[in-house]
């Protein structure tokens, strides 16, 4: 019976595959490895190689002559300015997110019980997953002239305060939406959930008995917080900061929609490849956030951030 032999042969084959872990592993891994190797790693390498190509400003052509000019150009004052502007925004957003996230995460981990625990969890996860572009759109609605914020400060007679804030160098700008303050607010809003959840996870692991013991031994609540809870939660803060920092560094849509005209790393990359067509320079620019994030990750690893993920 040919059918039976075929069946037995198939069963022998599957036994063989199953009993040989290496063969089984290779079969499982081949498709994802091929996909990632070809599509992803291949593309990254293409970009890396292209960043050494040269671009002719007059003919607008890319030639395959290898050069370090693009990397040298990164260090020009104008480009350093872009890098510094992006870095300081990323740092400010990270700091603000940590300050806003901590009390919320602390409440979630230590006080929210029963239905409230699930409720808070979903209530933080929902804005995180809600469409990025719609959240950005919502802020143009909120910050618009005549919009919600405008109505709020006018009805409370705070126009003077807002005008004063907008006149400050570094923070201010023409309107709320075109000021650095507006850009900072939107960035902080959008990345905030990415800070809350890792801090909450870290705080969840602090045993309540530890705080109790501190109180029994005569520590004031503030002392217990500063010497016990804060150090144990710090890896969570660092883990969250990896997200807020790296996401701000690589973003190019929010700087385009909010804030004054100065370029960010992301907007620079986008204009370089799009309007100008200088893919080599854009490629060199993408290496900046990669290097900064790699440096940041190595510091974070030393601070124990990955135990909290």
């Amino acid at each position, binding site marked *: 019976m040919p059918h039976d032999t075929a069946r037995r042969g198939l069963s022998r084959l599957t036994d063989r595959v199953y009993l040989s872990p290496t063969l089984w592993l290779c079969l499982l891994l081949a498709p994802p490895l091929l996909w990632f190797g070809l599509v992803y790693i291949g593309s990254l390498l293409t970009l890396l190689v292209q960043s050494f190509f040269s671009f002719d400003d007059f003919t607008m052509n890319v030639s395959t002559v290898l050069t370090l000019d693009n990397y040298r150009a990164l260090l020009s004052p104008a480009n350093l300015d872009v890098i510094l502007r992006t870095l300081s925004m990323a740092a400010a957003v990270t700091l603000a997110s940590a300050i806003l996230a901590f009390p919320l995460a602390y409440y979630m981990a230590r006080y929210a019980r029963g239905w409230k625990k699930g409720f808070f969890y979903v209530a933080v996860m929902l804005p995180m*997953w809600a*469409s990025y572009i719609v*959240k950005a*759109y*919502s802020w143009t609605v909120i910050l618009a002239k005549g919009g919600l914020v405008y*109505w709020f400060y006018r009805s409370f007679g705070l126009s003077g305060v807002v005008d004063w804030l907008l006149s400050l160098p570094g923070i201010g700008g023409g309107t709320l939406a075109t000021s650095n303050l507006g850009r900072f607010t939107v960035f902080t809003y959008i990345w905030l959930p990415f800070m809350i*959840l890792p801090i909450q996870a870290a705080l969840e692991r602090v045993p309540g008995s530890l705080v109790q013991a501190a109180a029994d031994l005569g520590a004031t609540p503030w002392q217990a917080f500063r010497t016990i809870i804060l150090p144990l939660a710090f890896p969570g803060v660092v883990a969250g900061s990896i997200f807020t920092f790296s*996401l701000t560094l690589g973003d*190019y849509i929010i700087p385009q929609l909010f804030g004054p005209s100065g370029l960010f790393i992301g907007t620079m990359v986008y204009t370089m490849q799009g309007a100008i067509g200088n893919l080599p320079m854009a490629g060199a620019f993408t290496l900046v956030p990669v290097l900064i994030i790699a440096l940041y990750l190595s510091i974070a690893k030393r601070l124990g951030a990955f135990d909290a993920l």
Partner: protein
Amino acid sequence: MHSDQNRADRAPWWLRLLAWGGLGFLHLPIAMIALYAFNTETSAYSFPLKGFTLHWIGVAFANPDVLAAIWLSFKIALVATLLALVLGTLAAGALYRHTFPGKEAIGLMLVLPIALPGIITGLSLLSAFRLGGIQPGFWTIAIGHATFCVVMVYNNVVARLRRNSHNLIEASMDLGADPWQTFRYVLLPQIATALLAGGILAFALSFDEIIVTTFTAGNEVTLPIWLLNQLTRPRDVPVTNVVAMIVMLLTTLPIIAAWRLTSGTEDIAGSGK
């Protein structure tokens, strides 16, 4: 004594204020989108709102550009999710139990597309497509999306596989089930909800993605790109308001579903984007 216990379990008023205030801040923009979708005003965003209407919902759903964008985004998310389900499950099956050299590198490689800023993934894909002479379009978008969606499925499935007993699979094989039967009747029921949750997250991630998409889309207009175009050159404010609400619903409702599917287990879907 009892009242003391109660006081320790209750947060001080300022902490409650900060926590609920933080939640309010997170949900304010979402509430605004829900409100403005029913606004009667057509060219500005004045607050308080001028009036309530359902008119613009009908107008938005009759707009051919909007419908085309929704359909395109839906198709892309579907293809990307299917690819991610296959690749992510295979990777999870390979990595959950065995240890071998390079295992950590493979794990890192799967996360890299969402860990690195989107401009890097986007620009890399674009430069590779250009070099290969591939015209940007539907498939270039779908390929890019699938690449960063894999990790969503992988994370969910690998967490489930680690918790389940491997003995069940061996028992099934010992009792004479062929691999297909083992997969269908033993493994699949165990990982089904993890697959569903991972698939939902992958779909939501793809449906909303914009940064990588702007590099790989060419002239195609996905729903997020349609919205971005409206933001930079506003034309139809009321229609945009309605579309914003639709996208908001399509990206948040699935997350609640994914959460319900995996809540009560250790690794809850959606806790990392």
